[in-house]
């Protein structure tokens, strides 16, 4: 069953249309990747799913996005955007842990959503750090400032901070672009592990990465979703000429 259903969505930054009539459904417990050349609207689309575009001036969105059958784009007052973001979390391109300790980074979401009594807090922090395979490395350094970690560790910490609040969907916007190949491979491993429990949508510039980790792939061009299907199909037997040109590197 589709957990995210995007119907006829258009998005305008002022007069500029960044998303054009996109229709797409994302299945639960799968990894969906979005590929396409720079500026085609991947990040814009991703950020719609947890309403992170809300603060941009002059933005206008039409169409529908249903998550778990609820229309998240409606602007009526009683719709709780903070609750949506708890359910649909995001990991950014540049690892951006808070300038707090490792422990406080992971505990942040638990605290703000009051998900744990203080006695349960350290257990839950440990659980989240274990899930991203940071626990062994950091268990003696929980009180250190998170900004002193390596880039890869910081990005893992951002994932740990996110899964501590038990979201349903994890959005990743080029999560490996600041990392070296070895760290990238490790984060990819982590994604495959997380897929068992979460639905993952990843934006990537790296076509090999999309091919390696994702189950479904969408190819975007100039704001349009040109083709969407099983990853194996998109990369071996694309239906659209434009998709074929892009995945075989003959693009542009």
């Amino acid at each position: 069953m589709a957990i995210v259903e995007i119907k006829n969505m258009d998005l305008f930054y002022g007069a500029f249309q960044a998303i054009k009539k996109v229709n797409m459904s994302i299945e639960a417990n799968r990894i969906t990747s979005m590929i396409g050349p720079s500026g085609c609207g991947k990040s814009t689309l991703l950020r719609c799913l947890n309403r992170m575009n809300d603060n941009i001036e002059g933005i206008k969105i039409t169409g529908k996005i249903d998550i778990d059958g609820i229309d998240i784009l409606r602007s009526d007052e009683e719709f709780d955007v903070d609750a949506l973001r708890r359910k649909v979390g995001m990991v950014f391109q540049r690892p951006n842990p808070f300038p707090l300790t490792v422990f406080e980074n992971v505990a942040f979401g638990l605290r703000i959503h009051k998900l744990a009594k203080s006695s349960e807090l350290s257990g839950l922090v440990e659980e989240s750090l274990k899930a991203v395979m940071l626990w062994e490395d950091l268990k003696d350094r929980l009180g250190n400032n998170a900004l002193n970690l390596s880039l890869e560790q910081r990005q893992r910490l951002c994932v740990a901070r996110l899964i501590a609040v038990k979201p349903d969907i994890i959005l990743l916007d080029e999560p490996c672009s600041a990392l070296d190949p070895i760290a990238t491979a490790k984060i990819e491993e982590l994604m495959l592990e997380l897929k068992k429990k979460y639905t993952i949508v990843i934006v990537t510039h790296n076509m090999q990465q999309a091919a390696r980790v994702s189950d479904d792939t969408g190819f975007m061009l100039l704001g349009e979703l040109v083709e969407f299907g099983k990853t194996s199909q998109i990369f071996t037997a694309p239906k659209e000429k434009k998709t074929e040109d892009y995945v075989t590197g003959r693009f542009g």
Partner: protein
Amino acid sequence: MFSRKVTDSIIEKLIFASGIAAILLVSLIFFFLLREGLGFFSEYSIKDFITGHFWYPTSKPAAFGILSLIMGSLFVTLGAAVIAVPVGVMAAFYISEVAPVSVRDVLKSGIELLAAIPSVVIGFIGMVTLVPLVRVMFDIPTGLSAFSGSLMLAFMAMPTIVSISEDAIRSVPWTYKEAALSLGATKWQTMYRIVLPAAAPGILAAVMLGIGRVIGETMAVMMITGNAAAIPESIFDPVRTMTATIAAEMGETVKGSMHYKGLFAIGLVLFVITFIINFIADTFLNRVKK
């Protein structure tokens, strides 16, 4: 017509000379302060000076205890800090995080305007409006009290605290806020749990600079604190500060007398206190820049 090279070198020399002059002047001030102040301590013990309760510079025998003056400065300054810090920091948050752009611009120029009001003017306005108000509101014999002084000084520290805190808050990277919001934090939780700690060193520096400004303030406190050199028991008692003492008495002393030197010694104490406060503020500001 001079050639451009000559003009250039003249301007260069002028700038150099004014730089040297500034340094020279400050060193001279410091030198006189030290000479007169330290001269005082060769004849009067430091301990009696700092801990003595009585400031009777003209009686025989004279007493030069400045504890009541230190307490006066402390009461007024602490009172000002208690009022100005929470209000100032909240105002800074409002300006940088909440206010719409148009309101923000108006407020910022308003605050800069506040900083430009001469302290005599603030003191005078305080004397004619605040002092009677405080007397009636708290039902005390005179409104000339530490409390009135604190209110006035809070008003004077506010522009410094607000504008420097606002800079600190605004320089917290957007990525931190974005991360907090994407975890479902409300705007308020983001401010309180992420932005405030991240901006804390800058805010602390702002507070220190604000306090540094008011502790040296003279005119306004002289006009509205009542000038009674006695150790205050409550914030509603009249007090006298170190700065007010120097300003009020310097004109009446005989140059070179003990009284004269004693006032310099007070200046020295004040200098040490402000130096320490500015030093702490600087340390925090440098930490922010790193």
